[in-house]
């Protein structure tokens, strides 16, 4: 399909959006619509993949291909899709429970691969769709309204975890800074490798602590003049990682938004595959012809040639 000139509104489906009025998720899809329009994303070649949760519904609200997967499993589904068709532009919308709770193993595994895709985490500190239990992003001692008692598990630090796991683009944005988020998404898409965006997303129904007000008072944007997250050469990697992790500890009074870490040098998984399978990018698994007129492309002679190791002639 030829990319058409689509507007942000064109990237919205006519599925009724049933998020709670005022939900931070609206800002996230708004930024996605705009980013997709500005990037002239081809709807058939763009895939929005989500897990299960309020965030999971995103796949139905964006007018590209949408794959609404299982709770916690958006990343392996996404990798299957991307690795068999690396031409696709793959965006993932996952809940914080999705990604850092049940799906955490996949989260770290993706970092180790650096597959070229974008992971957007709807960071709302709760399991929203199951009615407000503590998500892994909720700090210990906090008690949003659905909890009987304050949370007794510590929170994970998503930025530090992403950096430690090998993500090569790690950023934070905020659902009500739509422009900032849109730009961050575009940067993440342009980045080659696994990109992670921690998106602060107020859940107006269940999280009465991390409200718009809470974030509005605390967030600030990292500025180029005193913050450079980009790895210029291999030797810088560790230092930039450390810098990002150190920055990620700022979460209480002032919450930084922006790119924490960006490393364009580590090869993507697709590049690693291409290295051993040179035709990979040209004819990836989804694009291979496997039959000619209903017959396998491997005929008898070819079979013998390929599998000579197994064949004995007597």
């Amino acid at each position, binding site marked *: 399909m030829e990319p058409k000139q689509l507007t942000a509104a064109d990237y919205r489906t006519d599925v009724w959006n049933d998020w709670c009025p005022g939900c931070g998720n609206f800002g996230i899809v708004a930024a996605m619509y705009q980013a997709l329009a500005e990037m002239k994303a081809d*709807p*058939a*070649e763009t*895939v929005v993949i989500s897990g299960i949760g309020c965030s999971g519904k995103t*796949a*139905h609200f964006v007018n*590209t*291909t*949408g*794959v*609404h*997967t*299982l709770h916690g*499993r958006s990343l*392996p*589904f*996404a*990798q*299957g*899709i991307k*690795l*068999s*068709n690396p031409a*696709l532009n793959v965006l993932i919308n996952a809940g914080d429970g999705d990604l850092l709770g049940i799906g955490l*193993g*996949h989260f*770290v*595994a993706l970092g180790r691969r650096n597959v070229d895709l974008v992971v957007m985490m709807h960071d709302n500190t709760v399991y929203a769709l199951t009615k407000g239990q503590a998500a892994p992003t909720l700090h210990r001692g906090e008690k949003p309204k659905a909890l009987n008692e304050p949370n007794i598990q510590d929170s994970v630090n998503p930025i530090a975890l992403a950096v430690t796991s090998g993500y090569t683009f790690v950023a934070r944005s905020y659902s009500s800074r739509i422009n900032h988020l849109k730009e961050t998404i575009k940067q993440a898409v342009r980045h080659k490798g696994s990109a992670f965006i921690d998106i602060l997303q107020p859940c107006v129904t269940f999280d009465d602590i991390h409200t718009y007000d809470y974030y509005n008072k605390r967030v600030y944007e990292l500025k180029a003049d005193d913050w450079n997250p980009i790895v210029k050469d291999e030797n810088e990697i560790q230092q930039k990682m450390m810098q990002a992790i150190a920055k990620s500890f700022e979460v209480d009074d002032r919450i930084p938004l922006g790119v924490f870490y960006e490393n364009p040098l580590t090869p993507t998984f697709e590049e690693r*595959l291409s290295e*051993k*399978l040179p*035709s*990979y990018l*040209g*004819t*990836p*698994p*989804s*694009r*291979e012809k*496997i*039959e000619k007129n*209903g*017959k*396998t*492309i*491997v*005929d*008898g002679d*070819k*079979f013998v*040639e*390929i*599998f000579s*190791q*197994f*064949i*004995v*002639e*007597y």
Partner: protein
Amino acid sequence: MEELRYILGGPQGGGLETTSEVLSWSFAKSGYGILSDREYFSNIKGRHSYVHATVSGTAIPFHLSYPVNLVGAMDAETVFTHFQEIDKGGYLIYNKDEDNAKFDSIPSIETELKMRLNEFFKANGIGRTLGELAVYLAEKRQINVVALGYSSLLRELQQEASVIAAQASRYVSSILIGSIASLVGLDSSSLAFGLERRFRSGEMLEHNKIFSKIIARHIQTFSYKRPNLGKSSLNRGKMVVASGNDFVAMAKLVGGVRFQSYYPITPAADESFTLEKYEKVGGDHDLIVVFQTEDEIAAVTSAIGASLTGARSASATSGPGFDLMTEGLGWAGINEAPILVTYYQRGGPSTGQPTRGSQSDLLSSVFASHGEFPRIVLSSGDHSEAFWDTIDALNFAEMFQTPVIHLVDKFLANSIASTPMPDVSKIQVQRGSLVKKVGDEYHRFDFSSSVSPRAFIGDERMWYTGDEHNEIGHIDEDSENRIKMMTKRMDKMNLIEKNIPEERRYALYGDKDPEIVLLGWGFIKGVAIKALEQLRNEGIKASYFHIRTFVPFPNESVVSIFRNVGPERVVDVECNYEGQAGVLVRLNTGYQLKKRIVKFTGRPIYLNELVEATKRILSGSSQEVLSLGA
């Protein structure tokens, strides 16, 4: 002798596989058929492992049996473990350097065996040493004991091939190659072929050739009558000699799998390793991405993802991994995603007997995952079936747009068989209903048919969700839509019923008018068919009903078997405790299998015990629990 049966034993990791492979290649090259099963502990090095093979020049063997004609022992433990299994007039090759070894001081022998040995030695008044046992075998059991001094053989090798002492131990397993080749009179070019296959070229190859000559010289000194297999009368032509795992891997490559995800697990992983070896498939522009995931959940879900983009995709696992795939399977079901899971059955439950075989995962594969969705469950009986079932499974998955589970038992997976090369020109690749360029109006789950035209992600815009959905693929909770969509999906079972013909679902062997029918599946096929022959020789008319697909089930044929021979004369033969195929027979036909021959020790069913058990059933027994095999 119609067939040669041997056991080769030694410590896990000690080179036994090499020995077995070389011999398999060599026998195959000289025209014999071979089936060679591998039994091993869940252990990397040191525990007792053995190969049990049948070699024949009159028919390609698909069965194993006791007693064997020859036991080749790399170590004392092998002799202690297998001496009872040698037939009168059979051969024992062992290392006389270990003559002083006592079974009760070998730490790797399990307590239960030690206790049994203790009783045996006591009862027969023999001392506890290997040497005494060897004498007993030669004298009391008419066994031809080929006692070799392994260390002096290795010393000869060091001299003749100038192998340095430190490396000589790598050749212990070659002693068995050489001695068996020589005993059986394997022609030297076939032996060379076997060695070349295994060692390609270089030092190892040369040393092995020299060594087999050294060994042959020693073997010549024994005056025993030689086992004589006779010239092979099998048809000449190309044979594939490979394990079940490898047959499946070949079929996946040829059948068009371009994405395979896996997480290592015995006995499935060997299939994926073979795929990795052939990741370039064989052409410049053909390739398969073999994706080692972080767990089986990721394995199945990434394979489903790949499938949505149009790549034929598959995974391979065994029990514990399949359990973890359960949830993903349901997502594929509701999303009508073609996907193949090759399910290698090992001993359960739980970690169970991870390196042993079983047929105890049938019910879990038929019923795995909550809720209801169509699926197909195939099962293979031998290496050739495994090949063709894989091809079919891939086609079925796409034709019906639904998950397919292909059951292979470990017995089949890990045994090496020689099979005539499949006629590749017969392979059909059926991709089912596909569309392209439909544009904005593409509805992935169009109600027009149970199998909606399928476009690939990347070609059209579309939606998928694990929630109940409308034709477009968006979440829908309306009752009317739910009824339509459930019915559309479940109707596939009718389509499957119609399109997979009854003959594809089973095979019937043996007497047309049997006194007794053995009903089985999987690797039981080979031994059951051979048992029919033996029973016929003993005047018993028997047949074997082999189930090849469990979903769809061969209802009609099973019913007609019961009707024709009567429910009292159908015997359930399975490698599990409860008779799982029997459960499905009941469920699908209402008939109850009243006689059972089961084995759940993790070892395959052997010809002799099956024949004996069948006879006991004929004389009135209703259940036989088999136990043979170390």
